[in-house]
């Protein structure tokens, strides 16, 4: 069996080292080794986007990345999006727009939405639908998701990325 490798990365701001085999995908290592189970496995072949994470700010399907490839990279996963007491505006807007049902696709959608709004702070509906084409949702219906993204853009334009306090 191929020797395990040590990989050093930053995950959600924390310097992290892990051991992996060359054949392990980033998704496998996140879920099975690092216990970061927010990224979901839908298709394992790059079609559904449920496993989307950001590598150096770019959205990727973590099922199509080898864990050894991310040596030295800066990784963001759904676990790093909210602050301890506050949801990220994108999360808040998905909630308020009921832009999720079973929620399997939601971590991926939120990571893609974050990446979209980092690139383009006021996307048109067409821009949103095109950018999110690599994320599939089986249950919600895309209109609610598009509205959640539009609201996120507005909220972030007025509030920045300051979190929204969770009402407990």
């Amino acid at each position, binding site marked *: *069996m*191929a020797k395990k*490798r040590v990989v050093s990365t930053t995950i959600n701001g924390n310097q992290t080292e892990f051991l992996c*085999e*060359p*054949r*392990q*995908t980033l998704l496998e290592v996140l879920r099975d080794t690092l216990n970061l189970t927010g990224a979901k496995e839908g298709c*394992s*072949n*790059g*079609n559904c*986007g449920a496993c*989307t994470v950001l*590598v150096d700010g*770019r*959205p*990727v*399907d973590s*099922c*199509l*990345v*080898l864990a*050894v*490839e991310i040596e030295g990279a800066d990784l963001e996963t759904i676990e790093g999006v909210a602050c301890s007491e506050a949801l990220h505006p994108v999360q808040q807007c998905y909630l308020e727009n009921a832009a999720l049902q079973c929620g399997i696709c939601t971590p991926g959608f939120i990571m*893609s939405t974050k*990446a*979209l709004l980092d690139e383009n702070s006021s996307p048109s509906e*067409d821009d949103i*639908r*095109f*950018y*999110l*084409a*690599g*994320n599939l949702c089986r249950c919600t219906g895309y209109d609610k998701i598009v509205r959640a993204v539009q609201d996120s853009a507005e909220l972030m334009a007025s509030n920045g990325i300051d979190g929204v306090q969770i009402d407990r």
Partner: protein
Amino acid sequence: MRDFEYEAPTALADAVELLAGANGSAKLLAGGTDLIDHVRTGRLEPDLLIDIKKLAELNVLEASDSGLRLGAAVPCYQIYGNEQITSNYSALADSCQIIGGVQIQSRASVGGNLCNSGPAADSTPSLIALGAVCVIAGPNGTREVAAEDFCTAPRQNVLEAGELLVELKFPAPGGKSGSHYRRFIPRNEMDIAVVGVGAAVTLDDSGENFVSARIALGAVGPTPIFAQAAGDALAGQPANDDSIAAAAAAAREVATPIDDMRGTVEFRNHATAVLTERVLKTAIARARGEADGYTIGH
């Protein structure tokens, strides 16, 4: 997934040596958007993956008066994010914007798209239309092959054992030039081309007549097809509906599609002509500096 070793050389000579030394049991890893799935599903059974993304030669992205140099491993998002490419090599940017969704575009390279050598690869018709030359390195040195000669059969190409694609070289478009790629798919995005057409045109100073044109077709044959006669016949012709219709008919003549779940022979032949007309019109509008009416995904 199958057990394999992983190397990420930083010198081209080391990559060639590793590849040649592996006697066919190594595969090159660019963005992995084709390769990783092929290994996972057992279609390919490599013992070694050689990551080529750390090779400087494969990351070149340089547009100058003498043309464009595009490293084989440069990912799609960097290509359509480059203003020189969107304005002077538009067909290439058009292709890269519709390969998969953004997650795929963060990783997928044009080199991988070409070397995977699928008949429906969305960037290959653009490479052919834009006159790209493939620079190949191997144990016996470097050689060059025209993009239209690269693919030889479905999933097969001219690369010999131990060879890899280093970069694509494009001539600088002269005078009033424009190019475009589009495909027909039943959805708006994230699907495999039923037919794809790329074209590059150069017009005379008046913008009324063709100086030259190159047209290439995807998904209508065992490899992408260079519709050379269709483009050559436009040289010296006025750029109008008649000449465009004649080129579309000539492009349809060289299409050799098959029936499959994505489309019939009849549909594909028809769509080849329709898309050739539309793509030429958009390329002409771009050459003239007019609004091109193209909305991505529509």
